[in-house]
Structure formats: structure tokens, C-alpha cells
């Protein structure tokens, strides 16, 4: 989604001179289109993410719309208190852009994984939290939200090739997007791992099970009404996220079920253990944490057998 982000931002910045892009010295082979077109509005703040968020807070007060870019933990975790006391407390138009959702930085290891970002950002009232499932949805989501009055956090996947069939770039703030209309299995999914879920639904179809995928890209505001509507139609839901199982979409769904008193059991798929030091390809690491199409299909099949 890096390319989708940069190309969209270049287009928006051409029309609106308030847009500024700051990076914490990352974005090689990604941010160049913006840097070359708007050298005066591109700032490499160096490897100093706290300062970068502070700068954005000062810039926003004067009327700019600063986008702050880094790899997920460096965009969110390192400067978290700066984000809380700066853009969120001041309700300023700062946009935090974290790249590499979940385990996408596979070989780079645990320091580069984004496994708790939605958990800690979603709990902040007044912060819009967006986690698109593919590049086309990322573009729609950015266009729909970049000029919102308060701060926004974008949780973006690393690559632009992943496509979720049937999503077709749909996005609406505070709503979810439905792919498929199967009545056997319901998946509620956040982020680019939706493509694995999509592959899992293909495997399940071969076993005679028809699925519905509900994609939650608007984590804050959450799609409460849409979630209630879809959860009412199933006795079980399988939530999937490349994120720790606590704090993300699995937690959101559980909150909705509990608060609305729905008769629906949540089965949460996500990362349950600290990834430790063993790395591998993205496929390998996701499989290690039960996030492959095969593993997800098996969870779904097992849930049907139990019912």
C-alpha cells in the first residue's frame, strides 16, 4: 500500500498546499515521487520519531496537514506519548502513517512487526483509525479521510500487489465492507491478511462451505451498527488479524457481541505469542502464527464440525 499511499498523496498535495510529508528516515523506493515533486514540503526528520510528531503538532497548529511516515513500531510505539499529548489532545490534523501491518516485515524480525498498534491507537477517543485491506481500499480510505478535522492513524500494508477479490476499493468511514454472501461461515477481518482469508474461503467452498467476509477498515469510528447486523445472522464468527489477538478486530467484535448481548461465539485468530527470534518469509511467519489460508480454513471447518 506504500505506492498507493504516495501516489494518492502526490495527487492530493497537488491540489492542496497544506499537505506536508515527514519521514523518520524511511521510505526508500517509496516516497521519492512526493520528495521530487514537492521538495519544500518533504522533510526527512532523521531517526527521531518523537521529535517528528512534535514537529507535526507545531505545523498543524499553523494550518498545515502533516503526514508522519515510518515503519509501524517507529511510527506508533516510539512516539506514542507525543501522539497522545500532541495531535490527539490538540485534535490537530496530523496523520500518522505506519507501514508494515502485522508480520509483513518478516525477516526483519520482531522489532519491525506491527502487532499492537491498533490496540493502543483504537483506545484513544478522538483518533480516527484506518486499516485498509488492500491498495485500492487504501486509496479510497485516504481520499475519504485525509482532511478530517482531527488526527488520523493509517495502518498500511507494505506491498501493493495483494488484492482482496470482490472488495473493489470500497471504503466508508464507520462501516464495514462485505465480500461474499455465504451462510455457513462468517469471517470478520482487519488488514491485508484478508487476502489469506479470501484464499481460505476458496478452500472451504471446495468442501461445500459458503462464506461471508466482513472487512473492518474503519476501526475508529467502529462499524458498530454494521457489525451488529452481520453478527446477528451467525452463531459463530471467526475474526482474523495479523495483530495480537488482544486489542484489534477480535477484541472489537467481542465487545460488540458482549455489549449487544448477541448469541454469537467469537473465535479469534491472530498472533497469540511473542514472535521471539525465529524469522522467515512472510508466508512462513504467518503460518507459524496460524494465519495461512490452510490454517484459517481448518479453524472454520472445525467450528462447523463442533456445531
Amino acid at each position: 500500500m506504500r505506492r498507493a499511499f504516495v501516489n494518492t498523496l502526490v495527487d492530493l498535495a497537488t491540489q492542496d498546499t497544506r499537505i506536508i510529508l515527514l519521514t523518520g528516515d524511511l521510505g526508500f523506493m517509496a516516497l521519492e515521487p512526493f520528495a521530487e515533486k514537492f521538495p519544500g514540503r518533504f522533510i526527512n526528520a532523521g531517526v527521531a520519531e518523537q521529535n517528528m510528531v512534535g514537529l507535526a503538532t507545531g505545523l498543524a497548529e499553523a494550518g498545515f496537514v502533516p503526514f508522519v511516515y515510518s515503519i509501524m513500531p517507529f511510527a506508533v510505539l516510539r512516539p506514542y506519548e507525543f501522539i497522545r499529548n500532541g495531535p490527539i489532545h490538540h485534535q490537530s490534523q496530523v496523520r500518522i502513517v505506519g507501514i508494515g501491518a502485522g508480520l509483513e516485515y518478516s525477516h526483519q524480525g520482531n522489532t519491525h512487526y506491527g502487532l499492537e498498534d491498533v490496540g493502543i491507537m483504537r483506545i484513544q477517543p478522538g483518533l480516527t483509525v484506518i486499516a485498509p485491506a488492500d491498495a485500492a481500499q487504501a486509496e479510497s480510505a485516504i481520499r475519504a479521510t485525509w482532511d478530517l478535522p482531527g488526527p488520523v492513524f493509517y495502518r498500511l500494508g507494505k506491498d501493493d500487489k495483494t488484492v482482496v477479490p470482490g472488495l473493489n476499493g470500497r471504503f466508508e468511514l464507520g462501516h464495514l465492507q462485505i465480500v461474499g454472501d455465504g451462510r455457513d461461515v462468517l469471517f470478520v477481518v482487519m488488514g491485508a491478511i484478508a487476502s489469506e482469508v479470501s484464499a481460505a474461503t476458496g478452500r472451504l467452498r471446495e468442501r461445500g462451505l459458503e462464506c461471508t467476509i466482513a472487512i473492518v477498515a474503519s476501526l475508529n469510528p467502529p462499524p458498530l451498527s454494521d457489525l451488529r447486523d452481520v453478527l446477528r445472522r451467525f452463531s459463530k464468527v471467526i475474526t482474523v488479524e495479523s495483530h495480537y489477538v488482544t486489542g484489534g478486530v477480535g477484541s472489537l467484535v467481542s465487545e460488540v457481541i458482549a455489549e449487544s448481548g448477541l448469541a454469537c461465539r467469537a473465535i479469534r485468530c491472530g498472533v497469540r505469542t511473542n514472535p521471539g527470534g525465529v524469522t522467515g518469509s512472510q508466508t512462513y511467519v504467518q503460518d507459524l502464527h496460524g494465519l495461512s489460508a490452510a490454517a484459517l480454513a481448518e479453524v472454520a471447518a472445525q467450528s462447523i464440525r463442533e456445531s
Partner: protein
Amino acid sequence: MDRSSLSTKIRRIILEQSKRANVGHIGSALSIADIVAALYGSVLHLPDPADPERDRFILSKGHAVLALYAIFFLNGWITEAQLNTYCGDNTLLGSHPEHALRGIDFSTGSLGMGLSIGAGAALAARLQKSARRVYVLISDAECNEGSTWEAIMFAAHHRLANLIAIVDLNGQQALGYTDKVLSLSPLAERWRAFNWDVHEVDGHNIEAITQIVAGLPATVEKPHVLIAHTTFGKGISFMENQIKWHYLPMSEAEYTQGLREIEAGA
């Protein structure tokens, strides 16, 4: 008519309000009373607290905010009734600055954030081709924070000559003297090594502070810092350089003596 100096008036309000609200942070506010008097007396360009072209001021050591409330009252930005809500219920006048209050540009309270925000505000002024300046008052203890040095590097690298930092060098922090907690010496040399335009000044000499700021060389393309040598608790003998006055409220006897010393020093 009250003909006492601006800093005496600020100090009097600091004492009166601290006593009325029965709260601490008195020594920290007294430490910056003269710097605040200099800035709001004749340095800052503030036609109106909402004017986009006003100078920005960030009190990064937010816990000394009572000195700001005092000057806001003296400037007529807040009423006496508002001032009397300090540390009460349903008030924007807490013990750290809140931007929702007219006159406060940025909320602070967490140390080590103000200079980064100030650098961003200075960068914004440059991008907007505005002559406005950004002043950030930080404590010496804030120089413990790594983020302060991130901002120092950034401002120097980008030659933000419209950014003026003032360090309230009173030599003490929450649990001890800075030399004992985490030594900052030699502080002026450190800022100079980071390529700032460094000026040392008596932080209780309003005229000297005003003159240095007025004379900051426009040709030097560096951010400026005033290392302001101050006395914690300045003006009240039993508070000066005493750690406990970071915390304690005053007894009746201390309050009476404190007021007497302020008037005597006026």
C-alpha cells in the same frame, strides 16, 4: 495606583493563588517570573491571542504555568473570577497549561515535548514566509529528555533562526539538584556544540533578557538559546534553592512572610 513592577505583580499573584488553592509548584513559577515579565512585557508580538501572525510561546515546563495565568490576568485576557478558579473544579486553569484556554498556544505538562512542537511552529512560520517568532521556555531538567536533543539537532540542521529557546537554569529538579541527578554541565557548551547561537543571561534581569532578544542577530542563520541563570523560588528567602518548594503549599505564616518579602523586594 499599583506602581510595583510587573514581576512583583506576577510574584504576588503566584503567592496569592497558591495559597488560595493550597497547592505547590510555587518555586518553579517564581523561577520564571522575570522571564515571563520580560517576554510578555516587551518581547512577544501579541496583538491578540488568536492572531495567526502572533509570536508563539510554549511553556514547555508546564508546571510553572501559574506565572502565565498571572500575566494573562494582568494583560486582561482572563478575569479575576477566572484566575480564582485556579486548581478548582470545572476550570481550564489547572496546574499545567491547556490550549483550550485563550492565550495558551500548546498544552504541555510532559517534559521534553515543547521544543519539538516549537521547532514545528518555527518551520511553519518559515514555510508561510511569516516574520513571526517562536519562543520556548524549557527547564534545565528537560535537558535530561532525549527528545529535547532531537529537537535541538533538527532546529540547528534546518537553521530555524526564528526559534528562540530559553533555558530556566535553576539547577534543580523534582528530586534533587541537577548536578547530582544527571549532570548537564557544561550546558552552554553543549548547545553551542549542537550549532545554536548561545547567549548566557541573568534570568532575573528583565532588561538584560529584553536587550539580548531585541539584539539577536538576524544574519546568524541559527536557532537561538538564552541560558537563563535563575534561582528556584526567587524572591522568597526560605524557598530559594529548596527542593521541597517544588511540592509544598504554604502555611499562613509562610504566606505572610512571603508576601512581605515580595513587597520589600519590589
